C-alpha cells in the first residue's frame, strides 16, 4: 500500500539536495505525524511529467521555520487571536525537511541507486516509501543488499551523514538478515570513525 504524501518539494540546494515542506493542517485533511518524517526515513517524489518515475530520497535534516523568532517585543494581538486577524501569518510557520536524492524508480518500477538524470519540480508531492519499496530499492538481482549511494552521502560532508548511514544500515539489517555480517563491517567502520576516533 502506498503511503499518503507528507509534504511537497519547495526548494533545492543542488541536483540531489531538496527541501521538502511538510503539509500542515490547512493543506491536507490528514496532516502527517512527526514519526512519518523522522530522520533517516526513505521518501519518494513522484515526477508529474513522467508517469511512474519517482525519485527516492532520504530525510537527512529537519528545519523549523518560525517568522516570530526574533520578534521579542510585545504584540498587539494575543497569540490566540492571530488566527482570526491574520490567518496567513500562521501559514508562514513550517517544518522543512532536508531530503537527499539517492536514486529512483523508473517507469517500469525498476530501482536504480545513484544520481538520477531527472530532477524534481517545485510542489512535487513527497511520500514515505513502504517497507516493500525500501526492500525493492536495495535488493540486487542476486537478492543481496546494495548501498551504492553511500559515496554520494559521504561526499556531502554533512555532520549527520554518519548517523544517517548507520540508521540506514540498521534498517537494512532487519530486511536482509542473511547479510548482517557484511552490513556490520560497514556499520562498525562508520561507528569507529564517527564515535571512537573523534573522542581520541
Amino acid at each position, binding site marked *: 500500500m502506498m503511503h499518503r504524501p507528507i509534504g511537497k518539494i519547495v526548494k533545492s540546494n543542488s541536483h540531489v539536495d531538496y527541501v521538502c515542506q511538510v503539509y500542515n493542517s490547512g493543506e491536507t485533511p490528514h496532516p502527517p505525524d512527526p514519526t512519518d518524517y523522522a530522520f533517516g526515513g526513505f521518501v519518494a517524489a513522484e515526477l508529474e511529467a513522467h508517469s511512474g518515475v519517482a525519485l527516492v530520497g532520504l530525510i537527512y535534516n529537519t528545519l523549523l521555520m518560525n517568522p516570530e523568532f526574533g520578534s521579542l517585543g510585545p504584540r498587539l494581538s494575543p497569540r490566540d487571536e492571530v488566527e482570526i486577524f491574520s490567518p496567513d501569518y500562521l501559514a508562514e510557520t513550517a517544518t522543512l525537511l532536508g531530503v537527499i536524492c539517492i536514486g529512483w524508480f523508473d517507469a517500469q518500477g525498476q530501482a536504480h541507486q545513484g544520481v538520477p538524470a531527472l530532477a524534481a519540480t517545485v510542489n512535487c508531492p513527497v511520500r514515505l516509501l513502504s517497507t516493500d519499496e525500501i526492500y525493492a530499492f536495495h535488493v540486487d538481482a542476486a537478492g543481496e543488499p546494495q548501498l551504492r549511494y553511500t559515496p554520494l552521502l559521504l561526499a556531502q560532508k554533512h555532520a549527520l551523514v554518519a548517523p544517517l548511514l548507520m540508521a540506514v544500515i540498521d534498517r537494512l539489517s532487519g530486511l536482509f538478515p542473511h547479510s548482517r555480517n557484511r552490513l*556490520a*563491517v560497514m*556499520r*562498525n567502520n562508520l*561507528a*569507529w570513525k564517527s*564515535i*571512537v*576516533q573523534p*573522542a*581520541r
Partner: protein
Amino acid sequence: MTREDAMTAVGTVKGPGETPNEYLFIAPDPERRVKHGEFVYYLAAVDGVERAILGRVTGRRPVKLFPDSFLADPSVPPASVAALLGYESDATELFEITVTVLGYHSPQLGDFINPRVPPVNGAPVYIASDELLTEVLSKRRRGERGSAYIGSLLSRPEDAAPIVLDVRGFTGTHLAVIASTGSGKSYLAGVLLEELMAPYNRAAVLVIDPHGEYGTLQEMMNLREFSEGDYRPRVRIFRPDQLRVRIDTLTLADLHYLLPPLTDKQYYQLRRAYQMAQRRKHYTLEQLLQAVREAADSKKAPQNFEEEEEDVTTMGLLWRLNGALRNSHIFHDFENLELNELFRPGQCTIIQLNEIDRREQQVIVATLLRRVYQARMDTAKGKLERGDPSHLPYPVFCLLEEAHNYAPANADAVSSDVLKTILSEGRKFGVGIGLITQRPGKLDSDVLSQCMTQCIMRITNPIDQNRIAESVESVGRDLLKELPSLSKGQVIVSGASVNTPVLVRVRRRITQHGGQDLDAPAEWLKWFEEDRPAAEERAAALLGDKKIHYEDDGDVLLA
C-alpha cells in the same frame, strides 16, 4: 588445528609488502591465532592449477586500536568507554600482518616454488592445517629411512605437526647446533643421536664428548624402540684412560703444538728429525728422540762453542718431547684407536675427553679427523684393502661438542685446518661433521658458514647473535630476532635438512639426559639429612662418651 579451523579464513590480503616476496593482510584476529612465525596460505592459480601458496608470518602491526585516552584507568576496560559513547561492537582491533612468501610445495622438486606474483587484493588468507605443514615443512616422513624426528612445530600443540630432518642433508653437508648454556643443546644432540642410531638410519657415528655427558646413550642398546629384527645399536664409550694416539700419527704441526714454545733452531731441528723419522713406516718415541740426536749430529759445526750451543738446542728439544709425550698416557708407541673399531654402521662411539688437557684434546681430535678423512679418501680411491684397520667403506658422521675449542676464531688450534678441510671437502668422501657450540662468536666464521644445516637455540649474547647473522644465511632476520626469547628446548632449524626454516619444540628423549646441571641446594640438604648424621655416628663411635662441641671459630672441643 582441525581441518575445519584451517578452512576458515583469518584475514584478507591487503597488497604487496616492502620486499618482492612479502605481502600484507588484514586480520581482526580476536583469538590470537596469527602468531609470529605461524604458517598461512592463500589460494592462487599457478599455470592453471590452484595452489596453496604458503608463507610465514613475520610481522604484525596494529592498524586499529582503542585511543590511548580510553586506556587511562586500568580498572575501566576501553570497550566499556566505547560502549558509553555508543560503540558497542566487539570489533575493536585490526592488524596488518606481514607474510614472507615461501611458495607452493612441489613434491617432485622437494622444495617450495615461489610464484613471484603477489596475491590479489581481497583474497582470503587461511592458517595452514597441521596436515599440510606435516606434508610440506619436512623433507622426510617420520620413521622412514633417512629421517630424524626431532620434535614438532612450536606454534602448534605438541606433536600436531612433527618436524623430521633429512639425515642425508646434515650428514652430507654438515650440521651446527648453536645454543647458550642451559638451552638444551646436549639434549637436542641426544635426540639427533637417538634418531641416527634408530633402525631406519643405523649410522656410523663418533661423538667427541669433552664433558662425559653422552654416556647415557648406552641405554639405547637395551631399549626396544631401537631394535628391529636382529639389529640393535651398539654404543661404545672410550674413557680418557682408554684413549690412545700412536706417536707416529702425529704431524710436525701436532708436535709443534703439543710442545712448549720452541726456538727457531729447535723447530728447525725438530722438522729435520721428523723428516728422518718419517722414512720409517712406524716409529716410536725413542726412535723420534734418536732422530733428534741424529739431526743434531749431522749439523755439528767444527767450532767448539757452537757445538755447545747445539747441545743446548738438542737437550731442550729432547726435554720438551719427553715432557709432552713420554709422561702422557695418551700418546703411545704402538697402540692406537683403530678406525674400524671407532666407525661401524649401527655403532655410536663416544670419545670422552674430560680430564684431558685442552691442547691434548685438540691434538686427539685433529689426529682422529685427519685419519678418518684420509681413510675415507683412500678407501674411495681403492688404496686400502678390505681388512685394513683404516678401510672404511661407508660414510661416517662425527659430532663435536664444544666445537669452538677445535676451531677457535682469532686463535690458532691444531685441529682448525683439518676441520676446515673436512667441512669444505668432506662431502665428496662421506665425512659429515656436526658442530655443537655455545659460543658461536668464538667459533671460526668459515667453519660455521660451511655447516648447511643449523639448529639454533636461545642465544642472548649480541656478539654471538651477530656471528650467527653473518654466517648463517638460511635463517631470515625475522627468525633471528626470536633468538633471545626462545625457551629451553625450542630450536630454530634451517638449511639443507628442512624445506624452510622452522621453529621447533624438541621432542622428549627416549634415553636419559646425561648433561643435567647439578642441583646444588638439593645436594647440600642431602648432606644434612644423610651424610652428616652418619659422620656424627662414626665420630661418636670413635670418641666413645666424649661429646663434640663446635666453637664459633670452627675449632672442635671434646668434652
